[in-house]
């Protein structure tokens, strides 16, 4: 599974479950919390999705990291866990 596959699956989840689309105003480096597109419950759903879908375990540091505020950062994080 490469990074583009991972990113595509995360984007699909965000579209279906978190109900927003990536496009003109929302990009891979958009801070989704700053943009008001995700709240704490949405983040919990995202983490649950990542761990179940990619069979990775995210640490407390991961969850607090600015990486998990963006699509690109989340993708990088998952890829780094998959490579371990």
């Amino acid at each position: 599974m490469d990074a583009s596959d991972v990113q595509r699956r995360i984007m699909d989840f965000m579209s279906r479950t978190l109900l927003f689309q990536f496009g003109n105003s929302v990009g891979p480096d958009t801070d989704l919390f700053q943009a008001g597109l995700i709240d704490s419950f949405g983040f919990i759903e995202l983490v649950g999705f990542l761990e179940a879908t990619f069979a990775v375990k995210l640490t407390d540091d991961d969850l607090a990291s600015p990486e998990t505020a963006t699509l690109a950062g989340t993708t990088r994080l998952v890829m780094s866990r998959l490579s371990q």
Partner: protein
Amino acid sequence: MTSCRRCLLPDTVPGLRFDDTGLCDLCLETPSVEELGRVRAALREDMERVIEAHRSDRPYECIVAYSGGKDSSYTLKLLVETYRLRCLAITVDNGFLATRTYTNCRVVCEGLGVDHVLFTPRRSFMNALYRGSAEDESVHPPAAVRRASSICNSCIGLINSHMVQKAMEMDVPLIAGGYIGGQLPRDAARLVLRPGLQAERRSPRVERLVRSFGEEARPYFTIRPGADPNREITVINPMLGLAIREDDIMAALAPLGWKRPQETGVTSTNCRMNDLGVYLHQKRHGFHAYALETAEQVRHGLLSLEEATAKLAALPTRDDVAWIADRISLDLDAI
């Protein structure tokens, strides 16, 4: 309009998909009733481990976010009688609690021997919070508005923040909510909060609320980290580990003197504002604000299709909610 043949969720719910047999994707990804039973048992065992790990000689071992409604009343009863936790019940008076709710809070807490705090935010702020939430739902993420009305999201956000603030101030390690299935993401049954570490992540949300509701909102939604940045507070939701029907809940509460209020509508057992949220949500989005919660109760076998149909059909009318809109200076016709 198409509705799921199993859980009644309509195709007006954003993001919902259906298969060729008329089942929605939430039903398709829900395990069997038997497996759900095992999931609930696992949640219960996990919660019991958490409870045991947090027993102490502190004055209070658990703050219960106590609305006075049936679910949080049952939660309080369970934690006190079954788990022998020293609880502090905190009720946030939003200005729209039914008269009977105050009595219910008193008789339940007295009957269980529990200390109770009634916190009453300024009416002017609460009315502005509700009005602003009704006028502009974008204060909340799209997925939050699917889960509950914008009004309820704002109120619950204030309540949750208050509970965490008090837990931090009073050094209470546990907070218990009365959430039931469908009101929370499935992975949120137990949450470990680290307000110190999470302050930066939380900050955009607080700033958004301040932009929407004014600087008055800041103290209600800000959680000060405290001296220990690694301080943890665990949030549990005992009802998620139980399979108990509404009528059984109310039967269990009756000996304490709890009675269902008559003026809170079909979907609330404590709050009169709830109907306005349901009315506006239906008008804007074309599905009931309680559709997801009701669907989950059906999937768990706790509500029959007939009961769910009746619940979702009992929508408040404009006449039912006009007085609420007047109270908060909301122009219903502008929505």
